[in-house]
């Protein structure tokens, strides 16, 4: 498969790297490629369509090791990489920074 959904535990991802992990994945697999100026506050709602959101949800579950609740798939949580990373931290078993 092109998209690597192999399961990785969040314990392998250092907290400071959540943003970078998200940025790399979203930039490369969902949006315009690595050359896009994607920053932590770019509005993802403009860039990712509905199938992209579902794809991202599946990837988050496998990468960060928790089940995404339906009520959590909202523009508030998925609107930017910064908000997505904050929400992942709150939902993961990773100790707070």
């Amino acid at each position: 498969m092109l998209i690597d959904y192999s399961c990785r535990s969040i314990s392998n991802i250092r907290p400071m790297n959540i943003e970078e992990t998200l940025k790399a994945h979203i930039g490369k697999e969902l949006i315009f490629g690595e050359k896009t100026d994607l920053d932590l506050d770019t509005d993802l709602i403009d860039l990712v369509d509905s199938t992209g959101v579902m794809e991202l949800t599946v990837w988050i579950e496998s990468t960060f090791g928790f089940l995404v609740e339906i009520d959590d798939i909202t523009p508030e949580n998925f609107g930017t990489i910064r908000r997505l990373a904050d929400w992942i931290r709150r939902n993961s078993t990773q100790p707070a920074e």
Partner: protein
Amino acid sequence: MLLPDLLTHAAARFPDKDAAVFAAEKIGFSALDRASRQVAARLARLGVGPGERVAILYENSLAALVYFWGVLRAGAQSVDIPNLSGQPAIASMLAEARPRALAISARQLAKLDARTLEVTPDLLLGTADAKPHAAGRTLVTLESILAEEAPVTSGPGVTPGDVAMIVYTSGTTGRPKGVMLSHENLHSNVVAFNSRIQLTSDDSLLVIVPLHFIHGRIQLLTHALIGGTLFFSAGFQFPQAVVDEMARHRTTGISGVPYHFATLLSATKLKTTALPSLRNITITGGALSPAALAELKQAVPNARLHVNYGQTESSPRLTYLGPDEIFERVGSCGRALPGVTIEILGDDGAPIGNGQVGHVVATSPGIMKGYVSGDERTSGRVDARGRLHTGDLGRLDADGFLYLAGRSSEMIKVAGERVFPREVEEVLDAHPAVAESSALGLPDPMLGEKLVACVVVKPGASVSPGDLRAHCLDSLPLVRTPRELRFVPALPKTSSGKIARAELAKAFTAANA
């Protein structure tokens, strides 16, 4: 009957009723009618009228709605440009349609690249927030139109047979096709379909599709016909929000493609949400599996399920399957609408008997006037008798119910959106490392079909799947970008040199198993 007459009548019958409700703004029928007449007045002063085209490149919004009705009211032709298209596709549509003006949102205007700007008309219609992006072009704002113009009172000066709308959709050659539909085409379809589904002014709808699709436009026209309110969803990116919107607005209807309903069933709390107002669910653009239909009925027991089948080229509906038939005629997409004839032809073009699978061909007052490119006949889409060759394969039963059984064309349907392999392959082949490629649709439980591609890399060249996908996303929206890419040493060919897609699809599926 002209399409703007639908709005005139709705405004006369329900002047104060909401015509359209967006997240932060709304408009009543009378106000919408007046605003459309003000836009028509300005267009007339600018010399834009019958026979001329005004392209619309907008997200669903109040301004987009007002401009659409204003263009029709002016007797001009609206040209819907899909807002998620890549810049090359937008430039290609503008270059072909050659509109006199472009109605465009600030967001879309900011995105136009140099090549697209070369083919963008000098006259722009927008809102005041687009001013910083006008780049020397004349930008007429809706704010100024509504403040300054006296509404026109005369008719648009066109006949029902004149083109009203041009809707761009995917074409077999890889280039988008502009489908020209007349006032009569669309009006006949709206009336014929409503004679079956029987919506009234008590009905309302949550709009979850972009208006630039024929699916969106036909909902707009239908609710003008009945005087029903359209509630515009914030979008389908967050499916649970769509369920919440239906509950909050107490909408009586929703219309979507199978992908939408498969998603609502699997990724939302639809099954546990009370939606007592929801009484009409319309499934268009493909078959929902019998199991999913049953699940949907169980999730929303009050709702009547309606299925229809058609294409942009037929304005768009051809058949209808009602709630009383849906579980009796499992797998059917219904019977021909009033005025529509469905025939099944063999490879020799002669009609074949009931029960046998052949080419689905339709006669209908909704069949398009033609393509903007003018090749509807040479391409075989419309024959000498004016019949539309749908590119679908199917059979009719003894009672006239149509059952689709695949496609004779190479069309792929991803989440309800049609994609032709050539448009994807042209983009892939343009990458310097790619020798040749083949795009395929593989069955997918959520998307209907998943777009994948096999790529042959040039000797000595190197490229990663991620790079190729990023390359595609420079020109194509996500839905038209292959979800999976596979490198192969060569593409299997038929004896005539064509790519053996079926063989390739089998190999792809086997490798994924």
